[in-house]
């Protein structure tokens, strides 16, 4: 029975399917949000049909907007960026590239996938329970997330389900991480050393190591938060609170403690999202410039450095949180230091292209687009990494622009690149190259049009997580900007249909691919 198959290739495809479903769902949610931001008073019948409680008479309430935002962020981060690059492509290609028959623990592998499905179902259930989905964002800071319904609709059962979903996801990711690490350590083909592995394998290996430590911290963080909600403990809830005129009988807890636990996971999480993509991009750039990757060893070492340093910079998310200003100084220096290996990788990619003979396949287009987006999204990190400057930009649209470019869109471009590159291996047929390139050009223009202007809303000081901007005089100046961004988002979403069509059509009708269509040298193409 293929549904519960233990074959790594099937499981890889299942993960990719799950991510594909999630990314389109997350995108649809973002369109609804973008619509509401520029038409806050327009009544929409569809909203009322979908969310009778959240949009009475079709008028979207602020709590509905915030719950869509929470679900959008959570779905994108966990079920797209943590799932497709690592568990999807990693499962499918890691064993092939190191010459193993399968993953080290095939049954565990199957269980990880279905645990992930369970986690997604749990999350989506939050939409239909009383009060709807939680409104505290993908970061779920207590006390907002720790006191139940009293802090807002969606903060009751919806928030419980959200925490439960994340806890289940942690378990699934830990199982997946152990599987990948053991596979790399024990199942490499005879004679293949660590530094003989393709960089893709390095990406999956380092990502699995990061996951092992990061999710092992998020899991207890989630459990403690859940206990604060259901068992009346005071891990994160201080004493003397009065919410909605009701005195809360807690004492001594620390909201900042949760933030430390969350970001100890949260910062490494962005590397979980991007490192496998970096591996893919290195491979694609090298294959289509007809050269080896420039500085292979430096690239592998840079990944390890990013993975390691990634665990000591979490405080840059907390510069404004009220933690000790002295620790901000330390976190800031470390943060700028972790930027160095990322910049080194960019230079190595450019040097890989240098002196080559570039073949502009669709996969190559996405890879080059990735590099451009990585630069654009990366340099703003040099602003946010300085606590003195973050003091203005924290929680503004500048941050939204920064993380969408570097973590969201860049990682999604890596997924597109990987799909075009490996599709012939996965389905024996090509994705249509012409459609692929058209999709690339339109998407590339679209993401710049959506996310670059948002930096400027940040310059104006536009706070994020606002369902509308009506209350403030100073936000009148960004009305036009947001209108433009929303239209660009419609455009961006519409052109994704090209990809969707290509993906399903080519599985059955695409041009039949030979065994090694790109002239690659890694084992998934050359073995057989």
């Amino acid at each position: 029975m293929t549904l519960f198959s233990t074959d790594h290739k099937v499981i890889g495809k299942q993960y990719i399917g799950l991510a594909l479903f999630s990314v389109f769902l997350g995108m649809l949610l973002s369109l609804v949000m973008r619509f509401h931001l520029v038409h806050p008073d327009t009544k929409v019948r569809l909203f009322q049909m979908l969310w009778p409680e959240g949009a009475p008479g079709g008028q979207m309430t602020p709590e509905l907007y915030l719950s869509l935002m929470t679900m959008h962020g959570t779905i994108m981060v966990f079920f797209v960026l943590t799932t497709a690059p690592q568990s999807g492509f990693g499962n499918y290609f890691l064993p092939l590239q190191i010459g193993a028959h399968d993953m080290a623990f095939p049954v565990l592998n199957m269980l990880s996938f279905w645990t992930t499905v369970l986690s997604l179902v749990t999350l989506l259930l939050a939409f239909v329970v009383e009060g709807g989905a939680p409104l505290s964002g993908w970061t779920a800071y207590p006390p907002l997330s720790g006191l139940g319904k009293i802090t807002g609709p969606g903060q009751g059962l919806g928030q419980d389900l959200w925490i439960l979903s994340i806890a289940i996801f942690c378990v699934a990711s830990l199982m997946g991480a152990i599987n990948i690490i053991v596979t790399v350590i024990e199942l490499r083909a005879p004679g293949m050393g660590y530094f003989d592995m393709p960089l893709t394998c390095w990406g999956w290996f380092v990502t699995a190591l990061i996951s092992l430590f990061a999710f092992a911290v998020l899991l207890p963080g989630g459990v403690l938060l859940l206990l604060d909600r259901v068992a009346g403990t005071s891990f994160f809830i201080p004493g003397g609170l009065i919410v909605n005129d009701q005195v809360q009988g807690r004492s001594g807890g620390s909201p900042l403690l949760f933030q430390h636990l969350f970001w100890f996971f949260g910062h490494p999480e962005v590397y979980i999202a991007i490192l496998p993509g970096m591996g893919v991009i290195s491979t694609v750039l090298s294959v289509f410039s007809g050269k080896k990757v420039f500085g292979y060893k430096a690239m592998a070492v840079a990944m390890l450095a990013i993975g390691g340093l990634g665990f000591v910079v979490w405080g840059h998310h907390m510069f404004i949180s009220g933690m000790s200003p002295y620790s901000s100084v330390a976190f800031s220096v470390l943060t700028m230091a972790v930027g160095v290996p990322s910049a080194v990788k960019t230079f190595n990619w450019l040097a890989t292209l240098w002196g080559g003979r570039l073949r502009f396949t669709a996969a190559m287009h996405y890879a080059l687009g990735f590099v451009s987006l990585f630069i654009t999204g990366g340099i703003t990190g040099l602003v946010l990494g300085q606590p003195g400057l973050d003091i203005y930009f924290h929680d503004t649209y500048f941050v939204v622009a920064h993380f969408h470019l570097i973590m969201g869109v860049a990682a999604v471009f890596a997924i597109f690149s990987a799909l075009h590159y490996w599709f012939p291996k996965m389905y024996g047929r090509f994705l249509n190259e012409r459609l692929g390139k058209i999709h690339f050009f339109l998407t590339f223009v679209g993401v710049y049009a959506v996310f670059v202007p948002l930096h400027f809303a940040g310059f104006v000081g536009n706070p994020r997580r606002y369902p509308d901007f009506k209350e403030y005089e100073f936000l009148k100046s960004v009305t036009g900007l947001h209108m433009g961004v929303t239209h660009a988002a419609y455009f961006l979403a519409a052109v994704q249909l090209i990809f969707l069509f290509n993906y399903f059509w080519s599985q059955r009708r695409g041009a039949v691919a030979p065994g090694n269509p790109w002239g690659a040298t890694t084992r998934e193409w050359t073995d057989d």
Partner: protein
Amino acid sequence: MTNVARTGQTLLVVASSMLFAAVTSAMVVRRGIGGDWVAPELPVCVWATAVLGPLASWLVLRGWVRGAVIAGGLLVVLQVLVLAELRMAVIGEAFLSVLVGAHALHAAAGVAALARWGERAGLFWHFVGALWIYVLFLFGVWA
């Protein structure tokens, strides 16, 4: 034990250690700033359970897996009894509950693994036994 099984268990041990380290550091921080810390009292009979882990390990090494399963199972049952006594509203006891609960899950998994795979799951069990001593030590001496 195959290499794959050994490496897999080692990584599980790493992940679990990280998890317990996270709870421990949360506890250190929370105790430092809360101002409402009261150390939970551990009755002597709880201390006595410390021997069950090593006892089961010894039995595994002697090849008497069934005995180890019984000793491990007894530990889990006693842990559940301890949990029932703890009050969540008192922060020290809440942390103890989390650690005992997390450990009970590990111990139950360890017992199941011993029952299923016998000595091959020994590595994980040795860790579980040591971890329990760590938890008791944490509360008996430090808290």
